[in-house]
C-alpha cells in the first residue's frame, strides 16, 4: 500500500493541472453565472489524452486521479464519465462529453445539453446513444453543471444496446465517477473557504481564528480526506462494494459541507461573483444522483447482508487479506 503518487501519476496530475490552469480565471460574464462550462477546456482535455489514460499504459486508479483533479476546476468539465464509465463498457474514446442518464428520461441530466453521447440506464439495459443537437434541449439550472433533457422520443430505440452485464458495470463505475467528482469539488470548496476565513476579518481578527469556525472546518477537511481516499480506492479496486462505500461516504455528507461552507462565506458566499457555488452547487447536484447516499447504502447492505441463502460479501472492503 502506497499513498504517494508514483512519478507517472505525479506527471499525469501535473500535466492535467497545467491544462486546467488557464481556465481558472473566469470571465466577467462567467463570474456572474451559475455554471461555467467551456468547450475549449473539454477539447483540450480530450486532445491531451486524459480520457483514455488506460490506453497509455495506466489504469483505472490513474483515471480516478484525473477525475478527482479535474473536479477541482471552477469550470465544470465532463471527465469522470468519459474516463471511467465509458472504458468500462466500450472500446475507444468518446468524441465529446458523455452524459450518464438514468431514471426518468424526461428529466434534466447533467452534461446532456453538451453531450456527444449518452449512456442510458433504462433499468433493464445499458444503451449507448449518439446525441445530436435536435435530440436535447438545454435546461437552465442553478446547479453549476450544464443540464439538458431529451426532446427526441426515440433516443433509446436509435441507440445501441450494450446489455445487462454492461449495465451492471456502468452502474458501478458511475458511482465511482460520482464519488471522485464529489471529492474533487468538495476539496476545492473547503480550500476556497479556508482561504476566505483567513482573509476576512471580524472583531479585529480573521474569522478563521474563532474556534467555532475552526472546528467545523476541521470536520469538513476530515470529510474530504475520507472522500478522496475512498473514491480513489474504489477507482483502484473497481468493486461494487468499494463503489458503494465511496458514493455513500461522499453523498452522505453533502448537507454538512454545504451548510458549513456557505455559513463561513457569509453574505459574500451568496453572491455569484464570489464563486463558492461553482463547487457547492455541484455537490448539491451530485448529492441525490444514482439513488443518493441511501441508494448507495442499500446497495452496500444488499452485498453485506443478502437475503437468506445468498452468499454475503466479505465485510471489509479494504480487505485485510485479498478478497
Amino acid at each position, binding site marked *: *500500500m*502506497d499513498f504517494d503518487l*508514483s512519478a507517472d501519476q505525479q506527471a499525469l496530475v501535473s500535466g492535467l493541472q497545467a491544462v486546467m490552469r488557464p481556465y481558472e480565471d473566469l470571465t466577467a460574464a462567467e463570474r456572474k453565472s451559475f455554471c461555467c462550462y467551456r468547450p475549449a477546456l473539454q477539447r483540450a482535455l480530450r486532445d491531451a489524452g486524459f480520457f483514455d489514460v488506460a490506453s497509455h499504459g495506466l489504469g483505472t486508479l490513474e483515471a480516478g486521479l484525473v477525475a478527482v483533479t479535474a473536479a477541482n476546476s471552477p469550470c465544470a468539465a465532463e471527465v469522470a464519465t468519459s474516463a471511467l464509465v465509458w472504458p468500462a463498457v466500450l472500446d475507444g474514446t468518446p468524441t465529446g462529453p458523455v452524459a450518464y442518464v438514468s431514471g426518468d428520461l424526461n428529466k434534466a441530466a447533467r452534461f446532456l445539453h453538451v453531450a456527444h453521447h449518452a449512456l442510458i440506464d433504462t433499468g433493464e439495459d445499458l444503451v449507448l446513444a449518439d446525441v445530436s443537437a435536435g435530440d436535447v434541449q438545454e435546461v437552465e439550472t442553478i446547479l453549476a453543471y450544464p443540464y439538458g433533457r431529451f426532446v427526441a422520443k426515440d433516443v433509446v430505440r436509435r441507440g445501441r444496446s450494450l446489455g445487462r452485464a454492461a449495465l451492471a458495470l456502468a452502474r458501478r463505475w458511475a458511482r465511482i465517477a460520482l464519488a471522485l467528482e464529489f471529492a474533487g469539488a468538495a476539496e476545492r470548496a473547503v480550500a476556497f473557504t479556508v482561504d476566505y476565513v483567513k482573509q476576512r476579518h471580524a472583531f479585529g481578527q480573521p474569522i478563521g*481564528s474563532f474556534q467555532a469556525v475552526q472546528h467545523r472546518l476541521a470536520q469538513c477537511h*476530515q470529510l474530504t480526506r475520507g472522500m478522496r*481516499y475512498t473514491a480513489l480506492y474504489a477507482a483502484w479496486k473497481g468493486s461494487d462494494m468499494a463503489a458503494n*462505500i465511496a458514493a455513500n461516504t461522499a453523498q452522505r455528507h453533502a448537507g454538512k459541507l454545504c451548510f458549513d461552507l456557505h455559513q463561513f462565506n457569509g453574505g459574500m458566499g451568496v453572491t455569484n461573483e464570489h464563486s463558492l457555488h461553482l463547487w457547492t452547487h455541484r455537490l448539491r447536484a451530485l448529492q441525490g444522483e444514482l439513488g443518493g447516499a441511501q441508494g448507495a447504502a442499500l446497495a452496500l447492505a444488499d452485498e453485506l447482508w443478502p437475503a437468506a441463502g445468498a452468499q454475503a460479501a466479505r*465485510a*471489509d472492503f479494504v480487505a485485510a487479506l485479498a478478497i
Partner: protein
Amino acid sequence: MEFAWTPAQDAYRQQVRLALDELLPVDWAEISQDGMGSARQIDYSRVFARALADRGLLVPHWPAARGGRDASPWEQFILAEEMKSVGEPRGPQYMNVNWIGPTLMRYGSPQQQEEHLARIAAGSVVWCQCYSEPGAGTDLAALTTKAERRGDAYIVNGQKIWTSYAACADWCFLLVRTGSGRKDVSILLLPMSTPGIEVRPFPGLVEDGHLNEVFFTDVEVPATAMLGEESRAWEIVLYALSFERVGIPRYHIGREVLEWAVGQLRREGRFDDIARARAAGIVAGFETARLLTYLVVDQRAKDMPPTTDGNVARIAAAEACTELSDFLLTYTPDCLTGGDHVLNAFYRGNISATIAAGTYELQLNLIAQQGLGLRRAA
C-alpha cells in the same frame, strides 16, 4: 499510489493470526470479558506477551540490536490490528512496545536502556503512564505534581488521575514539575512499589482498570531515574505522543458489534431499509477510518514528519464508533441489558474514545491550526 498488500504483508498477517490461534487459551473469551485493563487480562498479558516474544512477534519493529528485526511500521500496525481484533491479549503492554520502549531508546541513559528494554522485549513487565492530573488534562502543562531535588534523589509529591492500569502496573512513566516555567517538566521512571505511592481505583462508566487515582507522598526516586535532562521533558512527551498518532484500530470490534445488532434485527424481522441503510453507512464510516489510518501508517513507514492526517483518522474512527453506539441503542435497545460482554465493552470503551489520549476537540484544534493553517484567536 496503489492499495495492494504485498505478499510478505499478507504472509505476516497470516503468521500473526496463526500465532493467535495457537496461543489464545480456550477460556480467552472469559479472561477478556472485562477488558484489557482488568486485573485478569493484565495477568494473562504477562503470559501471552512472553509467548509472543518467543515467536518474535512482540517487538518485530524494534532494531535488531534491541531484540527486534527492524520490521516496518506496516508490520507493527498489522500486528496491532490483529491483536485488537481479538481483544488485545497484550493488555497494557501494547504501550511498552509501541512507545515506551522506543522513547527509552531515544532518550534513555545506557543504564536505563539496559534496565528496561530487555524486560519490555521479553513481555514480562507492565507499565502505566502518569500524565493527567485533576487540574491538568487537555492542558497538560498545568500539572502540579512536583519533584524536588534532594541530594541524589527527587522527592515527589502530588496526585495523578485516570491512570490506566496503575493498580496492576510494575513501572510508572511519570510526568512531574521541576521548575516554575509552564514547560519545566521532567519524566521519572519508577517502580510502582516505591514507598509513598498509593493507587486508589474508583468506579466509572468505562471498562475496568482505567480509573485510578495515584497519590505520591514524599516518594523518593533516585536522580538516575530521570529520563533525559531535568525540566526538558516536553520534547520527550511530544515524541512519545507522536507514536500514538496511529490510533488504536477499533474498526474490527466495531464491525463485530454491528454484526451482532444486524443479526438480532434480522432474526426479529426488523431489518428494514432504514436500518439497513444506516448500518451500511456505519460500515462505510469504519472502512473510511481504516483507509485514513493506513494513510497515516504509510506516512510513518516513510519516516515523514507527522501530519494532521493522524488526527483526521482518529476522529473519523471515533465518529463511526459514536454512530454505531447510537445505532445500537436506537435499534437494539436491549443491547446493554442482555449481559453481552462485547457489547458492554464496546459501548463503555466508546464513551472515552473521544476523551482519552487527546480529546476530540483537541484533535479539531490541531487539524485547524496545524493542518489548515488557521491561527488561534487573540
